């Protein structure tokens, strides 16, 4: 309505906001960066490890009786030792993910984005590369970028076609960054080894969606920031953003339009 003064979103992303219209009408926007970085980075690494070590698949074998006796190559996954990790979007969350993966024996970090970020990259010795090279050289690809017109559908047939057969793809950004049909084909045809998705298009996926049937795809219902502590903090911050906006005061975290 015409009286709308303030929008307070319970997220760091703002791809769901019509920014042009908002800016035109002088509406202020509050958001929740930083407070959800740790929780989202933790979830991203949890998802990566669950996908590359086949945790849900293995846990299912335990329940179903498929686990009979120890066999050397049964349920073998992919390790992080000596691996190359490619991060798409080395922002707050991307850096937090890289920091957590480093002690797992990662040999090299690559990253891509709209431009190099030498200060952020220095901590990990990360090399700025084009998207194509990241796809070709990474054993693990983690998508932590914002959804923008530039990143929409970025991970597509060409991208997956360049990835290694033994590689693992993790997306905790936005579903629309990935061409889902191309991802499904890549997984089903063994072009990549496994995937972990916290975000899809749409959310939730229809119950008969083919991605849900793949053994090598771990899917979570957008729980990136879903811890008791983080959601409480986000809620309080969002409320404070809103109240400050209504009072015409500076917000704790205002989105600059």
């Amino acid at each position, binding site marked *: 309505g015409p009286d709308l003064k303030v929008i307070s979103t319970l997220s760091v992303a703002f791809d769901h906001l019509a920014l042009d219209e908002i800016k035109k009408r002088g509406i202020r926007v509050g958001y929740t960066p930083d407070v959800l970085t740790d929780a989202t980075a933790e979830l991203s690494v949890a998802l990566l490890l*669950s996908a590359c070590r086949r945790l849900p698949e293995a846990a299912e074998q335990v329940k179903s009786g498929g686990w009979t006796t120890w066999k050397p190559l049964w349920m073998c996954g*992919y*390790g992080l030792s000596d691996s190359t990790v490619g991060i798409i979007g080395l922002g707050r969350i991307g850096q937090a993910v890289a920091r*957590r993966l480093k*002690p797992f*024996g990662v040999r090299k970090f690559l990253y891509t984005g709209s431009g190099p970020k030498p200060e952020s990259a220095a901590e990990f010795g990360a090399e700025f590369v084009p998207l194509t090279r990241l796809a070709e050289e990474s054993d693990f690809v983690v998508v932590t970028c914002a959804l923008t017109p530039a990143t929409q559908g970025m991970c597509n047939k060409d991208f997956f076609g360049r990835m290694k057969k033994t590689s693992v793809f993790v997306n905790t950004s936005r579903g629309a960054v990935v061409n889902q049909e191309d991802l499904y084909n890549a997984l089903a045809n063994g072009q990549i080894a496994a995937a972990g998705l916290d975000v899809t298009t749409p959310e939730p996926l229809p119950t008969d969606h083919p991605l849900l049937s793949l053994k090598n795809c771990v899917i979570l219902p957008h729980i990136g920031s*879903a811890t008791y502590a983080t959601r409480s903090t986000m809620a309080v911050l969002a409320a404070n953003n809103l109240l400050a906006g209504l009072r015409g005061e500076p917000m704790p975290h205002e989105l600059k339009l």
Partner: protein
Amino acid sequence: IGKKVQAIYLWWHKPVINKELLQSLPNLKVIANSGVGMDHLDLKLVASFGVKMANAPRAVSSTTADTGMALLLASARRLVEVHNISISPSMEYCEADILGVKVAGATLGIIGMGSIGYKIALRAKAFEMNILYHNRTRREVQEEQAVGATYCKKIDNLLQQADFVMLTVNLTPQTHKLIGKRELELMKPTATLINISRGAVVDQEALAAALQAGVIRAAALDVTSPEPLPRDHPLLKLKNVIITPHLGIKTDKATYMITEEAVENILAALSGLPLPSEVLPS
């Protein structure tokens, strides 16, 4: 054929190394184990036949530490439970019902600070966890400082403070049922137990009861007693337990490395050279 056998490469527990087997292999010089745990071997018996033993510690520690962290994170965020909800056509959920617990700022208590325990500490530090550890002997100060770990001489202190308890001990008579009813009751009701050591380190009946009654929040087990668990075991029915089928070292690279280590030890023994990772009866 028995006279020709000079070396045995042991995959899991096969073949069973008993007196009969050892007597039938007079020229056996070395048994190389595909892993680091030696609790399935009677070390004194084997040594009494003049046979050397070796394990594969180098290949094992990183991959097993990765498994430990994978289980800690999966349990904290209820990953398996929530994945199953996502892929099931019928299960509905309320957003508030799928919240997990945060790892950053939480306290990790590592019981058994050998090479695997220490590698867990290195990983946990990157997640900004507070680290406590309990070990037979204290580590060097520099080693403690490198991971920000505080020594707990008494296991009780660790159990009372930890949000996540990680078991990385060897199985010995001293660590058999190390975690029982008493230890579980010392833990916080919000705490998680992770076991990547050996199933027998935990009193499983006590654990099942504790999980059912909410004495602790959750558990994640890569090892059980026996493996696999019988189909009707109560642990298999609990929602707040993740059980994985002894994935510890299950990556293609680690599997090759273990074999390489075993072969190194075997060749050394057959050449009369010192073994890179010999295990002696204590």
